[in-house]
């Protein structure tokens, strides 16, 4: 059966959308920038924010939605028998519905609120993983995972004796799938992989991999932290078992993340954290648990943050994910073109159209921290470091890189400033170095 499956070397990269089929009005960038107070701040230097893959900026509508909660109906949810608590409960549950619709979940109970992607993945690794894995089983991840989709599985492997295996990547930064049949077998119990690399921006062919994993009976968790903010992710179309993502990378606040799961899996899974809200009835020695999603939401949740994330989802819907994706492609094309003009630059990862959101690079002989430091002097905010992806850094034989990442509010001329800042760094830092 395994031998019958076919994995072409060049897997179809899912492009969301197919720009040619979806003629769009281009984004009105100035109008969008007007929605973000932080981008309108008057300072000596402009804020050229190229670090949205770490955290995105927050539009005023999201801040206002959270502000309204604290100013007008701040109260704990679910058991308050009074007006503002009922309002807070309704807004919190309505947020769950809107966020569920955003990823096309069948029902709101499939949306579990967590703190972030990391907590969502840990929830699955502890709850589902501890109940289902044992020695001899295998967990399949990729070398491009963020540490948040590696460490929970390393810990699970240490607890259960299950073996961790890795899908390698090519020098171009795409998954190497020719030997998938060796890696993905009946021993594989779960595949945990990122939809989009947080370092390289690579869009992985997750739909094909999910089908392949299901064919051997494995479950699949998709790390959607870098995909859900940038293009339409449809959990029913993908057929993933779990999807994890964070609010603060998609115009929402920090402190709120989501775990989507298939209902039958969530219902079978034991609780993760114990405490208030997650119980049905409690005796001295044992308890019975609430239905999902409450079973996984012990303690007072991040109420204003859930409401803020729903406002962010509404905002992204209003602007349009397709238009955002096309705009980011335009930024990426231009960034690749401009940065490739620089001598002694190494750009990691695939070309635009195989990726989204980010360009990662190094300049010969200049430490990434220094590059980021010089760019800061011209107002450009980028990230320098290992990007919580040390196995990927090891694959490229570097300690760190510089990453510029884009979102709906970035402009082409900001890339010109990035380019000028890099030339400035080269002038300053590669003069007489021995």
């Amino acid at each position, binding site marked *: 059966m395994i031998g019958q499956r076919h994995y072409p070397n060049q897997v179809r990269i899912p492009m969301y959308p197919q720009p040619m089929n979806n003629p769009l009005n281009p984004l009105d960038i100035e109008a969008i920038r007007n929605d973000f107070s932080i981008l309108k701040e008057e300072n000596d230097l402009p804020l050229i924010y190229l670090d949205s893959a770490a955290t995105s900026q927050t539009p005023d509508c999201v801040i206002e939605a959270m502000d309204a909660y604290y100013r007008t109906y701040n109260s704990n949810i679910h058991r308050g028998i009074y007006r503002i608590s009922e309002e807070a409960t309704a807004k919190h549950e309505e947020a769950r519905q809107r966020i569920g619709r955003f990823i096309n979940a069948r029902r709101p109970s499939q949306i579990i609120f967590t703190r972030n992607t990391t907590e969502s993945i840990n929830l699955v690794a502890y709850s589902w993983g501890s109940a289902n894995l044992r020695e001899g089983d295998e967990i399949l991840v990729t070398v491009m995972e963020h540490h948040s989709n590696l460490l929970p599985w390393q810990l699970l492997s240490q607890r259960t004796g299950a073996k961790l295996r890795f899908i390698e990547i090519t020098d171009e930064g795409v998954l190497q799938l020719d030997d998938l049949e060796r890696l993905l077998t009946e021993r594989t119990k779960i595949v945990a992989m990122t939809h989009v690399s947080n370092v390289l921006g690579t869009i992985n062919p997750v739909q094909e991999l999910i089908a392949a994993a299901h064919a051997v009976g494995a479950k699949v968790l998709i790390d959607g932290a870098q995909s859900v903010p940038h293009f339409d992710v449809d959990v029913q179309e993908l057929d993933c078992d779990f999807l994890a993502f964070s609010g603060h990378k998609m115009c929402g606040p920090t402190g709120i993340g989501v775990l989507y799961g298939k209902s039958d899996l969530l219902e079978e899974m034991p609780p993760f954290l114990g405490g208030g809200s997650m119980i049905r009835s409690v005796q001295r020695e044992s308890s019975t648990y609430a239905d999902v999603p409450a079973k996984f939401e012990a303690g007072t949740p991040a109420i204003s943050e859930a409401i803020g994330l729903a406002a962010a989802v509404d905002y992204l819907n209003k602007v349009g994910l397709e238009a955002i994706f096309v705009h980011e492609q335009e930024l990426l094309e231009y960034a690749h073109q401009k940065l490739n003009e620089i001598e002694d630059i190494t750009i990691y990862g695939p070309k635009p159209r195989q990726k989204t959101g980010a360009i990662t690079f190094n300049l010969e002989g200049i430490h990434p921290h220094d590059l980021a430091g010089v760019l800061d002097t011209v107002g450009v905010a980028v990230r320098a470091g290992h990007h919580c992806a040390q196995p990927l850094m090891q694959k490229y034989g570097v300690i760190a890189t510089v990453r510029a990442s884009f979102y709906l509010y970035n402009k082409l001329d900001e890339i010109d400033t990035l380019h000028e800042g890099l030339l400035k760094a080269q002038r300053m*830092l590669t003069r007489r170095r021995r």
Partner: protein
Amino acid sequence: MNIYEEDILDHYENPSNYGTLEHPDISYEEDNPLCGDQIRIDLQVEDGIITDLRFCGHGCTISLAAASMLTEEIKGKPLEEVKQLNKDDILDMLGIPLGPVRLKCGLLALKVLKAGAYGLKGWPGEEDEEAK
């Protein structure tokens, strides 16, 4: 005040006491897990005095310039005296303010020195804060 002052760039480009000693009395190497910077310091100590020293490694301008300045500062000094050096001394040598992330770059050389010479493993400055 710019963290890329001419003085810092000079130390970065032409560091003092760069290299290794053939027979060091003390040799210690460590890295900064935040950014992977790595510094090794070799010391030659006679009658409690640092008579010669070298450093080597890789890192950003701040970590290498701080290492270079530190080695200039302590050459010929009693090893015991060097124990008193702390975060503020490094900031004085660099002559610039450093944010919390770059501070670790600036302090790496002193951390390596203190770990090698006295077995003090913490980040300079942090032990003081704990004691307060």
